[in-house]
């Protein structure tokens, strides 16, 4: 059975590299490329695709996790495999929650990538070893693992937003934003916004810098 692939990445060189690697597999057919998340959503909706290889960061446009959610929400949707350089909890959880069938890192050896595409095409999950490690760590120490919502709040704190701005952004009361912060501080063992961001980036929970 041939696996029909859609390659979504904003970098032409990355798409060309993926095409070169994946088209060498006799059972893969690359049916389309998309330079933006929006284009990927549109092409995936047009049908004839089994697996989408989805980047997360597309410049200023729609985010890859957002596109994944839109694509996988449709009936008969293709599988989405996220392929990115980011390996933080925040990125991984957002993608998994959006319905991604797998999460791979761009430093993966080509044979791992091909194997993951076949795994996803057959309806199973494929995770990079490093990503599986992070998810298992979260399961081993659930009390210390930040929830998806807490990660969202913390990323906005990192961006320098006040509680008031965060509440507008997430459509939550400031009271609830504050409750989330209390839990974030407790889980990270810190007592300020700055040290929370520092501890979380240090542990790879959220991305470093902007």
């Amino acid at each position: 059975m041939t696996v029909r692939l859609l390659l979504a990445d904003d970098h032409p060189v990355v798409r060309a590299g993926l095409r070169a690697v994946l088209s060498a597999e006799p059972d893969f057919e690359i049916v389309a490329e998309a330079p933006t998340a929006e284009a990927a959503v549109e092409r995936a909706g047009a049908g004839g695709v089994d697996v989408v290889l989805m980047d997360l960061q597309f410049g200023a446009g729609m985010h890859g996790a957002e596109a994944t959610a839109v694509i996988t929400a449709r009936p008969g949707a293709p599988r989405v495999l996220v392929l990115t350089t980011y390996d933080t909890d925040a990125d991984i959880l957002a993608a998994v929650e959006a319905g991604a069938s797998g999460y791979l890192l761009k430093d993966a050896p080509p044979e791992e990538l091909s194997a993951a595409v076949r795994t996803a095409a057959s309806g199973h999950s494929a995770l990079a070893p490093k990503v599986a490690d992070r998810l298992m760590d979260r399961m081993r120490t659930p009390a210390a693992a930040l929830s998806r919502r807490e990660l969202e709040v913390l990323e906005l704190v990192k961006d320098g937003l006040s509680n008031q701005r965060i509440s507008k952004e997430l459509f939550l009361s400031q009271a609830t934003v504050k409750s989330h912060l209390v839990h974030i501080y407790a889980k990270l063992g810190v007592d300020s916004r700055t040290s929370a961001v520092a501890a979380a980036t240090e542990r790879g929970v959220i991305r470093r810098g902007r």
Partner: protein
Amino acid sequence: MDTPKVRFSVSGPPAELPTPYEVALLRIAQSALGNALRHAHADRVEITLSFMDTSVALDVVDDGAGFTPGGVRPDADRTDRDHAGPDDAVRDHAGRDDTVRDHSGRDRGREVGGASDGGFGLPAMRSRARSLGGTFTVESAPGQGTAVAVTLPLPVTGEPPGKASAGAVGPEPAEPARDAGKPERAEGSRV
């Protein structure tokens, strides 16, 4: 008036709640959503149920006209928030004051507040929250939307006593000076 987009979402691992909690949350959600639909002229209303370690929070937040909580019921132990703080950028999120105000019925706090409905049913929501040992807050200002939040402590289910209340009475996070507009908790009933 166009109907606003209303969205419901759940965050955190859902826990089974005793019936009185469910009833309280449902009634408060209905009441707050009713207010948002009738009065706020909002584009968007979000209802969020947040399960945290030791509490559950229900937020009903709109981006509509807002009001002055103090104008609703001057004697209530309300929480309101002052938007005169230096964080001007906030306005960009809620829409410019003047454009919102044009159709906002800005004075309705005064019109409705004194009416026999008890001021948007806020006192009834507050007492429901309190009867379960929870807190109730209203955050609003003209042109800034409205956030209604109730937080109920989860009934303790055989957890070590020291840990059980950590979420509800933990230290308040320190906030920078620009957060001067944050609401003050007027409730003394946090458990």
